[in-house]
């Protein structure tokens, strides 16, 4: 399965004078199985872009192709796109509404017109994916803790079994351990089920550690589409866009400036550690 955006642009208020483009001439292809990060400061167009990806917004220019088919062509069932490309909004817990967690997670599969047994089967599978076991099925979603609500809401999208899952800042407001746990579950989903992931994040450390491809947006345009390693080499340019690089990148650059012969294109603490030890001749 692949989703292709071809020269996509979107203008919210085309009537006004000098309309501002929220997304400006973006082309990219997403595939099942990959793990992409999407960064950009607030207002750079990330949220608009992800809503175009799953057909909630229709671009004013350009086309969105699902396996080669134009999704905004007459007669194309947009529901197919929403099923195959799942979107988890920011603070998704605010969309919970059913009496029980299980029922809430069934909402998506139900809308797909699946029979009841299959709805529940999918819901249970999705819940176990996010670490919520049978004890939670009959609980009211409003009685869960913040982190559990977040997981239940994510399960609500997962139950539609999308080939590509887009998550808009899924860790916002969680504590450090909660952040790590959730990201680990997303990684597992990617590795075990082959679900393509697009992780929208403000944390450079997170995208560096988890993503194998990094999309960077600035002023409605896609400015980088490369591996995190290559993107973070441009840390100066990223700073000009109100972004940054992981702390370890700065450490390596500082060491290099002090004359230590280290590679600067590290992404994680583990890599930085090995590189420093190597440069110091310890290993």
């Amino acid at each position, binding site marked *: 399965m692949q989703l292709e955006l071809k020269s996509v642009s979107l203008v919210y208020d085309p009537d006004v004078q000098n309309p501002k483009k929220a997304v400006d001439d973006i082309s990219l292809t997403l595939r099942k199985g990959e793990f992409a990060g999407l960064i950009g400061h607030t207002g750079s167009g990330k949220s608009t872009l992800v*809503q175009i990806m*799953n057909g*909630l917004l229709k671009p004013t220019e350009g086309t969105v192709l699902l396996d080669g088919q134009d999704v905004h062509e007459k007669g194309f069932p947009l*529901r197919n796109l*929403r*099923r195959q490309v*799942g*979107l*988890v*909004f920011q603070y*998704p817990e*605010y*969309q*919970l*509404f059913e009496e029980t967690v299980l029922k809430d997670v069934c*909402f*998506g599969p139900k*809308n*797909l017109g699946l029979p009841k047994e299959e709805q529940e089967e999918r819901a249970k599978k999705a819940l176990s994916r996010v670490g919520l076991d049978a004890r939670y099925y009959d609980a009211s979603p*409003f009685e869960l803790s913040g982190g559990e609500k977040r997981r239940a809401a994510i399960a*609500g*999208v997962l139950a*539609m079994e999308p080939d590509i899952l887009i998550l808009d800042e899924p860790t916002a407001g969680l504590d450090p351990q909660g952040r790590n746990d959730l990201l680990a579950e997303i990684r597992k989903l990617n590795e075990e089920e082959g679900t393509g992931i697009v992780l929208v994040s403000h944390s450079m450390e997170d995208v560096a550690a988890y993503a194998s491809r990094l999309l960077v947006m600035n002023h409605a345009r896609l400015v980088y589409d490369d591996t995190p390693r290559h993107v973070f080499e441009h840390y100066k340019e990223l700073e000009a866009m109100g972004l940054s690089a992981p702390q370890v990148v700065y450490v390596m650059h500082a060491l290099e400036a002090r004359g230590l012969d280290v590679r600067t294109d590290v992404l994680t603490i583990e890599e930085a550690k090995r590189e420093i030890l190597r440069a110091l001749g310890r290993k």
Partner: protein
Amino acid sequence: MRYTTLGQYYDADSVIHRLDPRVKLVFTIVYIVSLYLGNSPFCYIFAGLFLAVVIRLSKVPVRYMLRGLKAVIFLLLFTAFFNIFLSQGDVVFQWGFITITRQGIETAVRMAVRLVLLIMGSSLMTLTTTPNDLTDGLEKGLGFLKVFHVPVHEIGMMMSIALRFIPILVEEAGRIMMAQKARGADFDSGGLIKKAKAMIPLLIPLFVAAFRRANDLAQAMEARCYHGGNGRTKLHPLKYRRLDFIAYGVLLLYLALMIVLKIVTKS
């Protein structure tokens, strides 16, 4: 989401904008009453002229005001229709069971004129007064009701908070709707009952959100020392100035002339 322009604040710097909201409140009430005072065409012409002058002074474009009227055009036609066809009196036109009488036309015209003047007159108040001033004006202007244990301050505070949260909740509704659509929800197709049912996944989270926000807000207000209306001061307390007294004078004059006109034209 779009609101109708009927009564939405129009920013301009005019004498009318600068008037104390209480003056405008009294003006509006007196004006509406005056429309029901006189019955002759002269009275309406006079009321219309008076309004025209005030509109001119307010610097609100006439086109903007007329656009606001569009929202009530149905109501206008509806009342006119009933007046024309259902009044008894001297027949001027008859076709089958449809009869139109002179009195019918007269009442229809009178009602229509009155309605237009009434709507334009009262929307002028909201057009020239910010929601905040309006709330302040109501709170202060209705202050005498406190004697009857009407919680005037609390009502004013509630109105002002509602004003602040309407755009936030509208935005929130949009966000929840998108999130449910991403889960395959369909808000657009089907009959009335299906559509109403489809709103549940939108309405429940919206209610929950509204309660959560209300709870947060109550705490934030307490944290900022809110303890009811007693002993509160105001950053911009309402104060009558010369302009306001002049306005009251003009209003009295208008009312007096209206009464004179009514007596004169009656005989």
